[in-house]
C-alpha cells in the first residue's frame, strides 16, 4: 500500500482500478453469454460508446468546475434532428456539416453557460430547465415529422459502416475514431494547456481561484459551451448511426453521460478527473448497457436501474477513497 501511495497519483490508481473492473465485467459476460466475444459485439459496444463518449467528455469538463449539465440528452436530440433537417434541404459535405452540428451545440451550451456563470443560477436548475426547454423546442420544431435515412446525403448514411482500418476481423469504424480523436484532443488539452488547467482550479477551490486572479465566470461559461459543442458532435454521430431521427433522440443520455463521468473517476464535487478515466467509464457503462440486452437472466428493463446503481456506487467509493487517501497519506508521511 505504501509503495502504491508514494508512486501513484490517486487519479492513476483510480484509472487502474477502473481498467480492472472493466476487464472483470467483460470476463463475466463472456462466461454468461454464448458467442459474446465476437467482432459484432465489440462493434456494437464501440458504436454505442462513440455517441456517448463526446457527451461524457463535455460532461466531465462541466463536472470538474463543480457544475452539472443535465441538458445534454436534449441537446443531442436537437443537433441530430436540426442537422438532419438541414442536410435534407442542402446536402453539405462532412466538414460543413460538422461545423453546423458543433455550432448548434455550442449555441445551446452558451445559453446554459450564461445563466450559470453570469446569471448565478445553480447549474442543476438551469440545465434541468433547458433539458425540458430544448426538448420542447425540438417537438415544436419537428411538427411530429421524422428525419428518415432517404432524405440524408449518401456519406451520412454510409458513415456507420465506413471502416477506417481493420485489425484482424475487427473493423474500426470512422465514428469510433472521431470520438477517440476528440478524447485525445481534450485529454492533451486538459493536461498541457495552461488555460485548461483553470477548469480544475475553479472546481477545486472557487474562492482560491478568484484570489489567484482567475476569471471563474469565463471558465464556467467555457465549460458549458464545450459541453454543448461535444453534445453537438454526439448528435451528428447519432444522426449518422441511426438515420431515422424522432423527437425522442438522445433521451436519457444525461444519465448515461453522468454515469460514465463519475464511474470514470471525475470527482462529482469538482476539481479532479481525467479523460482517460472518462473513456474507460464510457466503455464500462456501454459494455454493461449493451450486454444486459443479451443476458438472459436479467431483464433489459434493469439497464437504467443499473446505471443508477453504478453512479451511486462510484460516488460512494470515491468519497470513501478520498477520505482514506488523506488518512493513509498522513500515516505514510
Amino acid at each position, binding site marked *: 500500500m505504501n509503495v502504491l501511495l508514494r508512486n501513484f497519483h490517486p487519479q492513476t490508481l483510480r484509472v487502474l482500478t477502473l481498467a480492472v473492473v472493466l476487464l472483470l465485467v467483460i470476463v463475466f459476460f463472456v462466461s454468461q453469454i454464448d458467442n459474446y466475444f465476437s467482432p459484432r459485439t465489440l462493434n456494437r459496444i464501440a458504436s454505442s460508446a462513440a455517441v456517448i463518449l463526446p457527451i461524457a467528455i463535455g460532461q466531465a469538463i462541466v463536472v470538474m468546475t463543480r457544475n452539472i449539465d443535465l441538458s445534454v440528452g436534449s441537446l443531442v436530440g436537437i443537433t441530430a434532428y436540426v442537422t438532419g433537417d438541414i442536410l435534407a434541404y442542402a446536402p453539405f459535405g462532412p466538414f460543413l456539416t460538422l461545423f453546423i452540428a458543433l455550432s448548434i451545440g455550442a449555441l445551446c451550451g452558451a445559453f446554459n453557460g450564461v445563466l450559470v456563470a453570469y446569471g448565478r443560477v445553480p447549474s442543476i436548475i438551469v440545465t434541468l430547465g433547458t433539458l425540458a426547454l430544448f426538448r420542447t423546442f425540438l417537438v415544436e420544431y419537428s411538427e411530429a415529422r421524422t428525419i428518415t435515412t432517404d432524405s440524408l446525403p449518401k456519406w451520412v448514411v454510409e458513415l456507420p459502416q465506413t471502416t477506417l482500418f481493420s485489425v484482424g476481423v475487427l473493423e474500426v469504424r470512422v465514428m469510433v475514431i472521431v470520438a477517440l480523436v476528440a478524447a485525445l484532443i481534450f485529454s492533451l488539452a486538459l493536461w498541457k494547456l495552461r488555460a485548461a488547467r483553470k477548469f480544475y482550479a475553479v472546481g477545486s477551490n472557487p474562492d482560491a481561484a478568484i484570489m489567484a486572479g482567475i476569471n471563474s465566470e469565463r471558465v464556467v461559461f467555457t465549460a458549458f459551451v464545450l459541453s454543448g459543442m461535444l453534445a453537438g458532435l454526439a448528435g451528428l454521430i447519432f444522426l449518422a448511426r441511426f438515420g431515422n431521427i424522432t423527437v425522442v433522440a438522445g433521451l436519457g443520455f444525461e444519465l448515461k453521460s453522468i454515469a460514465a463521468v463519475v464511474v470514470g473517476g471525475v470527482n462529482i464535487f469538482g476539481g479532479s478527473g481525467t479523460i482517460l478515466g472518462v473513456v474507460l467509464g464510457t466503455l464500462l457503462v456501454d459494455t454493461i448497457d449493451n450486454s444486459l440486452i443479451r443476458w438472459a437472466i436479467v431483464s433489459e428493463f434493469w439497464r437504467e436501474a443499473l446505471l443508477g446503481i453504478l453512479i451511486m456506487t462510484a460516488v460512494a467509493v470515491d468519497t470513501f477513497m478520498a477520505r482514506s487517501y488523506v488518512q493513509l497519506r498522513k*500515516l505514510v508521511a
Partner: protein
Amino acid sequence: MISPPLAGERSTIVSHPILELRHISKSFGMTAAMADVSIAILPGQVHAIVGENGAGKSTLIKILTGVHQPDEGEMLVDGKQMQIRSTEDAQKHGIAAIFQEPMVFPDLDVAENIFISHHNLGLVMNWATQYQHANEIIARLGITLDPRRLANGLTLAEQQTVEIARALSLNVRALIMDEPTASLSAHEVDRLVQIVEALKMRGVAVIYISHRLEEIFRIADTVTVMRDGKHISTKPISQVTQQGMVRDMVGRSINHFSMKVAANAHGEKILSVRNLTRDGVFSDVSFDLHIGEVLCFAGLIGSRRTDVGLALFGVEPATSGYIEVARQPVTIDSPQSALKYLIAYVSEDRRKFGLALNMPIFANISLPSLKKLLRLFGLIDRKAEIAMAESHRERLSIRTPNVTIDVGKLSGGNQQKVMLAKWLETEPRILIFDEPTRGIDIGAKTEVHNIIRELAIRGVAIIVISSDLPEVLMLADRVLVMREGRQMGIFDISEATQENIMALATGQTAAMSQ
C-alpha cells in the same frame, strides 16, 4: 504625523518604504472602520500590526490588497501615488496576502498551486520545468516539499508554505500574513519564523498580523497598534513591552497575565475513561474527571487531542476502551448517545461543526434543545425560543442588537458565545471545549475564560483542548499532555509549567521526572 519607524538592527541602511499609507479613512455605512491611518512599510522588515477584533486590521488588509477602496487618503508604492483597485492590481505591485485558512487548490499539486496565478507563462504547460522552478522557489524558503505532491493531504503549515511560495514566485515585495500561526503547532511556528527570516533577507516586507504577543516579540521589527479603526502607535520592537502593547490595544490597563483563579474543590467523579483507543488515531487514553474540575488537554497540533474529544462526543467513536459516566458504564457511539449522558462538545471549527451561519442566533441556540420548546402538535413555541436566546445573550453578554440576526454577521468572539449558549442550553454535566479562544481577541478571550471558570464553579465538569499554553495554565486544574496519539502524562496544576508540558508534548527524552 508619525515618525518613520526605525529599522532596528538595520538602522544604518537607509531604505525607502515599499508601501506607504497616508491618512487613509474608510467607512462602511455609519461605522468608521479606519480613520486617518498612516503607516509606512519598509523592505526587509517585519511590521506587526496588532489590535483587538474590530480594530481595523481586516479593513487595512482589504485596502492593501485592493478588495476595498479607501474613502480618503493616499497610498504610495515606491514613493509614487497608486490606486489598488483589485487583487490583480495588488499582485502587480508586488503585494500579496496569506490568511489563517490557506487558499490552496486541493486537487492540484504543489507546483501548480505555486504557479496558478501566473498568467503569462505561455499557452502550453511544461511540467518538467514547472517542477524545477517550484523546487527552486521552495529551496529559497529554506524548506523541503515535494512539488509533485497534491495539496490535498498537506498539513495546514505546508499549505501555508505553498501560499508563501506562490507569493514569492510572483516577486512579492510586501507580504501580508493574517494570523498565520493560529492553527500551527510550536514546531511549525518555528519553521514559519525561519521562512519569514528568509523573506526578510530577500528584502521582502512582511506585514504580520497576530493575536499572539509572544510571537510578535520574536519576529517583528516594528509594531503598530490599532484600536477602533485608529492608529494608536508605531514603535520599534525594542521600545515596546508586552504590558504596554496590551494597554494600547485595549485602551485600558488590564492585567491579563496573572488572572489565575484558585483551583476548585473537586466534587465527585463524573467521568472515568480507561484505555480509550481509536485504531490508528490514538491509543490508551485514561483519566478521571470530577464535578467542577477543568481538565486541559495540551499537546501539539497532530497530537490527536481533538480526536479524543470527538470520540467522547461520539462523532468518531472509539474502537475500544471503557467509559463510565456517573459510575455507570456507557457506550458512546454517536453524538445522540453522548447528549443522552449530558456530554456536550464545543467545536474548534465554528463554521463546520458549530454554527449554521445563515440562521438567526435564536435558532442556533435552540437547535439541540428543540424538545423543550415543543408545544401542541409538535409545534415550536417561538416566543419561548426567543426568550431562551435572550437569556443567554444577557448572561454571556453576546453583543448583538437582537437575537434574530444571522450568526454569520457576528464577530468571531460573539459567534463563539452563541455556540457556547447552544450547548449550555442542553444543561450538560460534561462540557468539552476545543480551542475555545482560537482567533478571537483578548477582550472576548477573557470573557470566555471567565465563563468556563464560572461553569466549573457551578458544577459542570470541563475538558478544554487548547494549544495556547498560557491559557492552559490559567484555566486548568489538571493538565493531560498528549503526543502523537499517546497520553504522555497528567500534571496537577501546581506542578505544571510551560516547560514541563512542552517537554512531554515534544517528546524530549530529558522530560521532567513526573
